[in-house]
C-alpha cells in the first residue's frame, strides 16, 4: 500500500487546517452559504436531511487496518456508531455536526486520511478493481497508476472548478470490475501489437439522469503520456463543457454534442501542444509500483484438506463457494465480507464491526482491507489453511452471509431515509427483496444477479446498470418504482431497458419475484439471468409482471 511521506502528510495536515479556517469563517458569518457550499463540497460535506453528511476518501478502495480503526473511532465519537460504504469505494457518515468536522479531519489526517475532493466539481477520488494485484485475469496492477493520478489530481490548480464533478476509474484485468465504461474517463490497461502495456482511454460515460456508456477515444496510450493526456482531456472539458445547465455540464454531454470525432480531435490537438513537456517518468512509475509489491506470501500449495472441510460443513461450503474467489498465488484465497446481511442497510458497518474487521485483517490478510464498488469488503490475501477459522470469526460478526454476487447482494443508495434529494425509500426495498429468500437454495438457483436500487434518478445506487434496476419515483407524494432489466457495468456494459409503468411500494417486491420466476421458466441450461434477458427480451417479463391485458 502507498505510504505517505512528509510531503503527502503535510498536505493533508494543511488541508485540515484550511477547512477549519473555512468552517470558522462560515460559522462567524464571513462566508455566505453560497460561498461556503463549493468549499465544503470539495471536502465531502453535504448538508442532508437530518444532519451534514461527510464523505471520506478511500483512494481506490484500499484501507490499512489502522485507518479502519480510525473510521471506527470517528463513527463512535462523532456519529451514531456506524458508517456507510459507497459505490465509489468511499465511506459516508450521516450524522456528524458541522462544528465537529474540522476535528474529524484533523483526526483522520493522523492516519493519512482525508475528505479531499470526495465531492464538488473537481476530479473525484479515483476508483479501481477491488481485486487489483491478486486476480488471475490481470494484465498489470492498476493501483500504481491510481496513486499517480491521485497525486496529480489532488488540489489540481487548473481543474478544481470544473463544470461538474469528474470521475476516473482504472482497470487492469480482463474482467471489468471498476465500471470503467461508466466514468468520465475510464482507463483500461491493454497491450499493443508490439506487446507494450499502455492504456485504452474511454471518455464520456456516466450514470445520473442521462446515463451514457463511454467511448474509446484512444485505443492505446503509452504510459509516459498518461498525465499529459488526462490534462488535455480535462482542459478541453474545462474550457468547452457546458456551464449553463448543471444537467448538461458533464463531459458525456460535451462528447455527445460535439461528436466523438470532433471531441477526439480537440483533445489530440491540445495534447500535441503539451505532451513533450509533461512526460511521466518511467522511474516514477517504478517508484510508486514498489509500494504495491506483493506482501510476503509464504510458499504454499493449494490446500487439499480444504475440500474436506467444505464437505463437512455445508454452511462453510456455501460461504466458500460464494464469498471467496481464487487468488493468483498458490495456497491463498480472496475473501469477501458481505455487508448485505438481510434486514440491514446495504453497505453499513458498525464501529465495533470496523474494529473487528481491522483485527481480522491484521491476523489474516497483511493488515489490508479493500472496499468494493458493490459495497462489500475484501480481505485479499488469506491463507487457505486459515479459511475455516476466519469464517467462524466473520460469522460471529454477522459478515458471513453467503450471498456475494447473488440477488440479495444489492447495491443500494441511502434513499429517503437519509437523502434530501430522494423520491422514495430504497433501503427498505432492498430488505424486502432480501426477504423473498428464506430459502438459500432458491437464491443460489437464480445464480449471479445484480440488483441495484436508487432513490432518485441521480443514480447513486447504479440502477441503470443493474441486471435488475429499481428507481424510486415520486407520484403525487407516494413512493413508486421504475424497473429496468438488462443493465451491466462489466465488459459488456449496457443500460437497462424499462420494463413498463412504475409499480407501487406494495407491489415492487412481488414484481421482482415475478421477474425471478420468469427467468426460471425461460432460461436455458446454465444460462445466467442477464443472458436470458438479452435473449428473450422484455416481453415475457412484462407479461408476468403486469399480466396479459
Amino acid at each position, binding site marked *: 500500500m502507498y505510504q505517505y*511521506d512528509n510531503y503527502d502528510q503535510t*498536505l493533508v495536515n494543511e488541508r485540515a487546517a484550511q477547512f477549519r479556517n473555512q468552517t470558522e469563517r462560515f460559522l462567524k458569518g464571513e462566508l455566505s452559504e453560497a460561498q461556503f457550499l*463549493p468549499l465544503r463540497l470539495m471536502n465531502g460535506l453535504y448538508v442532508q436531511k437530518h444532519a451534514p453528511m461527510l464523505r471520506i476518501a478511500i483512494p481506490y478502495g484500499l484501507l490499512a487496518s489502522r485507518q479502519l480503526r480510525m473510521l471506527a473511532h470517528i463513527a463512535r465519537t462523532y456519529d451514531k456508531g456506524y458508517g456507510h460504504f459507497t459505490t465509489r469505494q468511499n465511506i459516508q457518515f450521516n450524522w456528524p455536526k458541522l462544528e465537529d468536522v474540522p476535528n474529524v479531519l484533523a483526526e483522520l489526517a493522523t492516519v493519512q486520511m482525508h475528505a479531499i475532493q470526495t465531492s464538488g466539481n473537481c476530479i473525484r477520488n479515483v476508483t479501481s478493481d477491488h481485486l487489483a494485484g491478486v486476480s488471475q485475469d490481470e494484465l498489470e496492477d492498476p493501483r500504481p497508476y491510481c496513486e499517480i493520478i491521485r497525486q496529480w489530481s489532488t488540489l*489540481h490548480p*487548473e481543474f*478544481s*472548478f470544473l463544470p461538474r464533478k469528474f470521475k476516473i476509474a482504472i482497470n487492469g484485468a480482463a474482467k471489468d470490475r471498476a465500471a470503467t465504461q461508466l466514468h468520465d474517463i475510464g482507463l483500461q490497461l491493454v497491450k499493443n501489437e508490439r506487446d507494450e502495456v499502455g492504456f485504452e482511454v474511454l471518455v464520456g460515460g456516466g450514470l445520473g439522469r442521462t446515463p451514457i456508456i463511454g467511448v474509446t477515444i484512444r485505443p492505446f496510450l503509452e504510459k509516459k503520456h498518461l498525465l499529459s493526456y488526462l490534462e488535455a482531456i480535462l482542459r478541453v472539458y474545462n*474550457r468547452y463543457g457546458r456551464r449553463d445547465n448543471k444537467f448538461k455540464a458533464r463531459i458525456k454531454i460535451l462528447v455527445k454534442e460535439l461528436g466523438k470525432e470532433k471531441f477526439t480531435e480537440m483533445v489530440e490537438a491540445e495534447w500535441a501542444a503539451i505532451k513533450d513537456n509533461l512526460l511521466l517518468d518511467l522511474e516514477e512509475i517504478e517508484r510508486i509500483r514498489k509500494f504495491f509489491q506483493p506482501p510476503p506470501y509464504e510458499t504454499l500449495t493449494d490446500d487439499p484438506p480444504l475440500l474436506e472441510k467444505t464437505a463437512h460443513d455445508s454452511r462453510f461450503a456455501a460461504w466458500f463457494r460464494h464469498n471467496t474467489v481464487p487468488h493468483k498465488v498458490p495456497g491463498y484465497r480472496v475473501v469477501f465480507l458481505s455487508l448485505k446481511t438481510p434486514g440491514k442497510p446495504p453497505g453499513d458497518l458498525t464501529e465495533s464491526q470496523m474494529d473487528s474487521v481491522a483485527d481480522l485483517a491484521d491476523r489474516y490478510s497483511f493488515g489490508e482491507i479493500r472496499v468494493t464498488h458493490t459495497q462489500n469488503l475484501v480481505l485479499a490475501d488469506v491463507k487457505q489453511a486459515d479459511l475455516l477459522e476466519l469464517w467462524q470469526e466473520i460469522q460471529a460478526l454477522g459478515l458471513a452471509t453467503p450471498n456475494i454476487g447473488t440477488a440479495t447482494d444489492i447495491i443500494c443508495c441511502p434513499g429517503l431515509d437519509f437523502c434530501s434529494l430522494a423520491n422514495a425509500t430504497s433501503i427498505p426495498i432492498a430488505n424486502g427483496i432480501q426477504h423473498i429468500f428464506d430459502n438459500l437454495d432458491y437464491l443460489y438457483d437464480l445464480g449471479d444477479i445484480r440488483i441495484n436500487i436508487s432513490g432518485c434518478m441521480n443514480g447513486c445506487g447504479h440502477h441503470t446498470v443493474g441486471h435488475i434496476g429499481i428507481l424510486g419515483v415520486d407520484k403525487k407524494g407516494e413512493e413508486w418504482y421504475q424497473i429496468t432489466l438488462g443493465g451491466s457495468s462489466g465488459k459488456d456494459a449496457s443500460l437497462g431497458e424499462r420494463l413498463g409503468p412504475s409499480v407501487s411500494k406494495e407491489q415492487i417486491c412481488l414484481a421482482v419475484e415475478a421477474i425471478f420466476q420468469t427467468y426460471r421458466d425461460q432460461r436455458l441450461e446454465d444460462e445466467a439471468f442477464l443472458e436470458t434477458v438479452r435473449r428473450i427480451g422484455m416481453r415475457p417479463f412484462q407479461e408476468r409482471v403486469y399480466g396479459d391485458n
Partner: protein
Amino acid sequence: MEIIKDGHVVTNDWRHLSDDEVLPEQAITVSVQRWKSEKDRLLTGGVPLGLRLNSDDSLEELAADLGFFSIIVLEFRKFTDGRSFSLARLLRERYGFDRELRARGDFLRDQIFFLSRVGINAFEPNGSANLQEMLPALQEFSVKYQAAVDVKEPLYRRRK
C-alpha cells in the same frame, strides 16, 4: 483603490474602461469587444493598454495581439466558473505572456492559491474584501503535487 500584486497590497494604477467611456490620458484596460472595434485608435492613444478577458472569450483569436498589452485582466463573473484558470495557464505557458495577469471580480480568498499556481500574479476582488487578511491564503499549501506555472517540475522530481 488597492489590489494584491506579487504578494503585496499595492495601489491599482489601471482604469478599467467601459465600452462607451471616452479615452482618458491614463493606463487603461478594455474589453475584447472594444479592442476589436477600436484597435487602431487605441494603439495610437499613447497610453499603456490592457485587455480584459471574459472566461468565454476566445484566446486563440487574440493570440497575435497579446504583445500590445502590458496587463491582461481575467474577469470572474462567477467564482464557480473555472474556465479562466485554463486561460491563465495558456497565456503563460502557450502564449508566453510574461507581464501582469490579474484576476478581477467574483473569486474567493480560498481560490487565490490555485489562481497563483496557474500564473495569476495580481488580484482585484469585488467589494470590500480585506486584502491584508487575504494574503496568507497565497501560502495555504506548501505542497504542490503537479507542475503548473509556478513550479515547472512535478513534486516527484523534487521529492527528497
